[in-house]
């Protein structure tokens, strides 16, 4: 089993994406989805020498819900800053977020989340991979932003990727 499906989560994801692309359920598309879901992980296995292990699957659902909620809130926050705040009162800031996450996949997810949510864009990783450089659109209190990222996103990712 392990040899045929080196990466079961990827298999499921690929099959699901294929079915969504086809946009209707039939036996033919299901077979094609399974062929793709089997072939792609087998062919790309050399590129995944260490696969991330996912723990705490319900937490993934919670995480996605929180991020979606934050994206909607972020849109309104940024819209208000763009429309209502004069540039002179804007307090952009660079912040360094120390990371407890060590897996590249986990850091990628965190960096992408930061970019998608309230007034922050991740800009760079430190050379040792232990800090993330983040630019804030409007951060009167940069320390609070660091704490928010650590408690809201990183703590949950730690539980997922542990």
């Amino acid at each position, binding site marked *: 089993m392990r040899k045929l499906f080196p990466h079961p989560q990827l298999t499921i994801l690929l099959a699901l994406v294929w079915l969504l692309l086809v946009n209707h359920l039939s036996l033919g598309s299901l077979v094609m989805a399974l062929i793709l879901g089997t072939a792609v992980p087998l062919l790309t296995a050399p590129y995944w020498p260490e696969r991330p292990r996912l723990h705490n699957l319900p937490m993934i659902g919670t995480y996605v819900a929180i991020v979606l909620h934050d994206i909607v809130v972020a849109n309104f926050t*940024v819209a208000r800053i763009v429309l209502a705040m004069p540039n002179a009162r804007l307090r*952009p800031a660079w912040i360094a977020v120390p990371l407890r996450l060590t897996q590249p996949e986990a850091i990628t997810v965190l960096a992408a989340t930061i970019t998608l949510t309230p007034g922050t864009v991740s800009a760079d990783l430190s050379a040792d991979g232990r800090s993330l450089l983040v630019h804030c659109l409007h951060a009167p209190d940069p320390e609070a932003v660091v704490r928010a990222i650590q408690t809201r996103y990183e703590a949950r990712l730690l539980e997922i990727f542990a």
Partner: protein
Amino acid sequence: MVWDLLITGFLVLAGVFGLVGSFGLVKLPDPMTRLHAPTKATTLGVGGVLIASMLFFAAKMGHFSAHELLITLFLFLTAPVSALFLAKANLHHDRPQNLPHPEGSEWAILRIGTDTAAETLAGPVPEQPLTPREGRET
């Protein structure tokens, strides 16, 4: 009627956010702050159109359309990558002096031409390239 109002509402919301995002590009003062407006406001701009589209197909055409979910997925995968590339290009170009210092290291862009972060995270590079079989068993 209710469906029409809902669909229209989402389309208008999407249009407003798309406009705000583009206006932010003009209004904000420097390249890094300008990066924020299109990465955020546009997500809901595109999202609104996609929700409206799903509602339209569900209510008017009587079948469920899944392509919108995929577009959302691909958008969430690609938007941070392009934002990161733009941010890095800005960092290389402007070399801001007010960057905070990471503990015990320096930012990767200050070491041009090396991929130190990736090497540290992935551990030492194996001497023999992994074949698929070996890769699976480790």
